[in-house]
């Protein structure tokens, strides 16, 4: 395809879509009065419902069904694929790594975000300071992986060979031996997790900063008059006041972390004991063509997300009441 052909394709799909919307609006516009409400609602909702049924509901049901079958999708295995995930030694490493990602990332990212939000609160240049931390949110996981590759690069320690990675350079400067950060198991997982923390801290900081600013000034003032110090202020005023926001941030980052595979894929391809469920899903489904196991891994992701979301919604309900 040439550049022009691609642009024409894009223009055509946008025009086609505009035409569909035009028809919808036209149809809805002809219905007048309260009796036509149902019709208008139907016309407005129909495209969305169709798209969601075909694009989300059907595939999800299909994948759940597929997860009970073998690699080729022909013979029924029952819970066999799930048993593999929880017994196969390679898969257990995947589970271990996933747990590490999902536990470490939200807590560290939130801690950093909260600390930074408090540090720069009402400081000079606050918005600039925040933008610096927040910027990684705009960068793709792939881009972030390359950025951190430049930190983790390794060169063997020989005369006349310089380190090109920042971390090894710092290590050499204090007299250490350069390390293959992304190869040495199991610590390589931590160095991959750092990248996700780097990306998510800005999200945590933004939400928490807004929550901190919403703490009524009179509460802060009253605590201050009671002689509460900085630490006490943090423990007894700040944290309890922003608790709902903290929960939202922790769970949102947890869910995002669970589903991320780009970092692992770009930097190690899941080798050297670094695979996670989301990456293993891709490998099994699209590379080794083990559809059954791939489907089971996808369903596992689904199952892990559900309790977190339910908890989140219940906490929100509680804080609203």
């Amino acid at each position, binding site marked *: 395809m040439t550049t022009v052909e691609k642009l024409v394709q894009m223009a055509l799909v946008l025009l086609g879509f505009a035409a569909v919307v035009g028809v919808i609006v036209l149809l809805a*516009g002809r219905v007048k009065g309260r009796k036509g409400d149902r019709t208008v609602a139907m016309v407005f909702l129909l495209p969305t419902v169709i798209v969601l049924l075909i694009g989300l509901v059907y595939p999800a049901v299909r994948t759940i069904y597929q997860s009970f079958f073998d690699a080729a999708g022909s013979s029924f295995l029952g819970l066999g694929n799930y048993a593999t995930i929880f017994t196969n030694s390679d898969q257990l490493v995947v589970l271990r790594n996933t747990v590490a990602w999902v536990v470490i990332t939200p807590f560290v990212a939130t801690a950093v975000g909260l600390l930074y939000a408090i540090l720069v609160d009402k400081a000079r240049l606050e918005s600039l300071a925040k933008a610096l931390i927040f910027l990684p949110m705009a960068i793709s996981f792939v881009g972030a992986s390359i950025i951190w590759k*430049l*930190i983790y690069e390794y060169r063997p320690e020989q005369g006349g060979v310089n380190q090109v990675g920042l971390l090894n350079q710092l290590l050499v400067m204090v007299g250490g031996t350069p390390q293959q950060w992304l190869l040495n198991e199991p610590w390589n997982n931590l160095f991959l997790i750092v990248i996700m923390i780097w990306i998510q801290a800005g999200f945590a900081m933004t939400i928490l900063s807004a929550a901190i600013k919403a703490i009524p000034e009179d509460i802060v003032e009253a605590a201050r008059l009671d002689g509460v110090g900085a630490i006490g202020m943090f423990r007894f005023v700040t944290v309890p006041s922003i608790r709902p926001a903290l929960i939202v941030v922790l769970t949102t980052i947890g869910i995002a972390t669970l589903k991320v595979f780009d970092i692992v894929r770009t930097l190690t391809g899941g080798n050297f004991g670094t695979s996670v469920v989301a990456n293993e899903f891709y490998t099994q489904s699209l590379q080794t063509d083990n559809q059954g196991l791939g489907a089971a891994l996808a369903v596992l992701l689904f199952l892990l997300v559900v309790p977190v979301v339910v908890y989140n919604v219940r906490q929100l309900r509680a804080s609203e009441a």
Partner: protein
Amino acid sequence: MTSTVVPVTTTPAVVPPEGLTGRARNTLSRPWASAAALVLAVLWTLPTFGLAVSSIRPARDTRTSGWWTFFTSPDATLDNYRAVFSDQGGGLGNSFLNSFVITIPSVVIPMVLAALAAYALAWIDFRGRNLLFVAIFALQIVPIQVTLLPLLKLYVGAGLAGNFATLWISHATFALPLAIFLLHNFMREIPKELIEAARMDGAGHVQIFFQVLMPLLTPALAAFGIFQFLWVWNDLLVALTFAGSEVRPLTVDIANLAGTRGSALHLLSAGAFVSIIVPVTVFLCLQRFFVRGLLAGGLKG
């Protein structure tokens, strides 16, 4: 829940005197606080800065020394950028265009569909409305991984495999639940009296939608638009699964480059810089809307 939505105001660079009482709680720790904040800011900025510097260093330099040596022996070139756009270096020109062609419809289509659906769910009374809203809300938790393979089979069956269409449809579908939820929340905040008054004047739903709601909805639409733009532009999984080699976006090309030319740091850094410059620019220019969207989505959902 309106009370938790916090107005995001930018603090003036110089703190006015009345702000001093508010700052008092931090007075004791101020110098330490500033130092700690500075350390964090440097830690968070340095990696990206290193990438930018690496991308303009000659290939030979990136192989033999770290990017920080640039400041002791500066030698800058644009060759790396020329190389990544050439066919041997990665041909990023093509995927740069593809990223745009993929992203624009993937933002516009769900935005319009969601606005219509959210309006119906927020302001039209019909039976089953709440049930439908909860169902759509619940779909937000479906991870896209669960949908990929069956979708791929559907696309193959429909003769769409590898085309832009697969990416447009997929991204639009995946975005709808969150988009509807966000826009619905914004729409519900518009006073009922406004809608009722328009209805009294004989306005139909279409007029109300375009003349009353649209102008009020612009910030919400902008927030979702930026959100979705960043999401689609930065996506790897969907593109890797569906995009044929001709329609590959930047992320896929850079990820491939990392796999096949992993040691070519000069190409990788220039390529990565090309891929992040657009979302970072969009983000910096429209930060306010983005933050507002985050707060609405985060604290309400």
